[in-house]
């Protein structure tokens, strides 16, 4: 593994962002719109609901965390799509670059882009809507870590899917987080779900994050060990997504799809 080669993949993305406001603006605009929208919704709910319950941490905090996961996933998949859009696979994969180095470069890009989104959301939610996110201190970091790892796993799996199905499949990728959100209990306890959905949610690391956050906000008891389950699950999903991408890459090399990716299929 050569760090310099992974760095080259990330540097390419940095060059793209540094020379393109149309790439930079979406990094913070969409999350800002989400925070503003949900910020006012929580204010309204606080006004009409019975006193004693604060919707700001319960809803706005949940939106912030879910958007963070979504941005991490999109950071990986958008970086991959840049190579699709510029038809760069032949140039890229005829170099000594390994799959692991390539994915590491995509993940590095995602760390940078998702941190921009997270910082924007934290500033707005704290300064405008009074979300006391920093009151939790370092205790919030494990929750963010699990969400980050889940977003990375989802991003790698999504890129593998796009490599397998061709450029048009990017439209399957964007709604992936929305498809998962009902199962992970972003806004409601997992116990609200029917039993079969609860079983699915147990397999999804973000479920443990949102259950834990909800318990802390409501001041109820919660076993921190369950977050460890989320951590190990997300780590396992990253490994599985990496293996999936490697398998898809090998199939693409075998069938000739990698060299003729724009054709979408070689059959």
């Amino acid at each position, binding site marked *: 593994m050569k760090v310099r080669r992974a760095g080259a993949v990330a540097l390419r993305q940095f060059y793209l962002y540094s020379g393109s406001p149309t790439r930079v603006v979406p990094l913070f605009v969409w999350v800002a719109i989400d925070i503003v929208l949900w910020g006012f919704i929580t204010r309204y709910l606080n006004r009409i609901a019975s006193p004693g319950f604060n919707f700001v941490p319960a809803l706005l905090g949940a939106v912030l965390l879910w958007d963070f996961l979504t941005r991490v996933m999109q950071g990986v998949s958008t970086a991959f799509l840049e190579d699709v859009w510029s038809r760069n696979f032949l140039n890229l994969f005829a170099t000594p670059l390994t799959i692991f180095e390539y994915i590491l470069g995509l993940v590095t890009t995602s760390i940078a882009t998702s941190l921009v989104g997270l910082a924007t959301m934290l500033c707005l939610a704290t300064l405008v809507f009074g979300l006391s996110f920093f009151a939790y201190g370092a205790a919030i970091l494990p929750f963010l870590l699990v969400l980050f790892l889940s977003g990375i796993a989802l991003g790698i799996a999504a890129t593998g899917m796009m490599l397998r199905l061709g450029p048009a499949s990017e439209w399957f990728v964007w709604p992936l987080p929305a498809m998962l959100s009902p199962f992970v209990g972003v806004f409601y306890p997992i116990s609200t779900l029917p039993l079969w959905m609860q079983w699915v949610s147990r397999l999804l690391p973000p479920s443990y994050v949102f259950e834990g956050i909800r318990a802390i906000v409501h001041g109820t008891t919660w076993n921190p060990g369950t977050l460890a389950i989320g951590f190990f699950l997300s780590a396992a999903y990253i490994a599985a997504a990496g293996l999936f991408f490697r398998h898809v890459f090998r199939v693409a*090399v075998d069938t000739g799809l990698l060299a003729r990716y724009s054709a979408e299929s070689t059959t």
Partner: protein
Amino acid sequence: MPQEPLLSVSNLSKVYRHTVAVDGVSFAVPPGEIVGLLGPNGAGKTTTVNMILGVLEPSSGSIVIDGIDLQQRRSAALSCTNFAAVYAALPGNLTVEQNLRVFGMLYQVPSLADRIDQLLAQFELERFRGTRSGVLSSGEQTRLSLAKALLNTPKLLLLDEPTASIDPAIARTIRATIRSFARENQSAVLWTSHNMYEVEEVCHRVFFLSHGRILLEGDPKSLPGQHGAANLEDLFVQVANEQLHNGVKP
């Protein structure tokens, strides 16, 4: 004592379901030699090049680059290889310098800034250093692709129709550049082209591919005479017609 080949291709085949694209091709290219891979469209040239570049898995056979088996140690084998192809333009949304820096890092080029300066001067691209590659003329893009191809001073250089879209004056300069590159660095060059004049001028040896097989091999200057053709172009047409008569679309 004969030199160890820098590229050794043995019994290479590629089969797509019912189509045989490359059929048991074997050849070797020693250091300093420029070998032309000729043949009509669909003969299997680009398929062969793609397999040597590691972006297409052979159905059978082996590829050894500078003593390294490509299938066993892909990354190590590709470290000493590079290529330029008319169908593989560098990302148009990066500048000339950015493209060379990114690919220089991918090939782990030492003293990269100096190497980039050297190549920009060699290919007369200095004034385009900060220009996005996508707005360059096709000839300038070809020169950029060639600059990228020489970044790591490759032991094996693959050129797929490298002068296809450039004017005769620049094409002549590029041919001279590649010739001196191969001579000075003792690099092996595999060159595909449909310009028979160019092939005759540049290549030490040529292979004619047809139906995925090597049909003829030899010195491009003497080969036409050996097969009753007036020149290399006539010989090419003969091979292409033979392919046509065998029911393969050109």
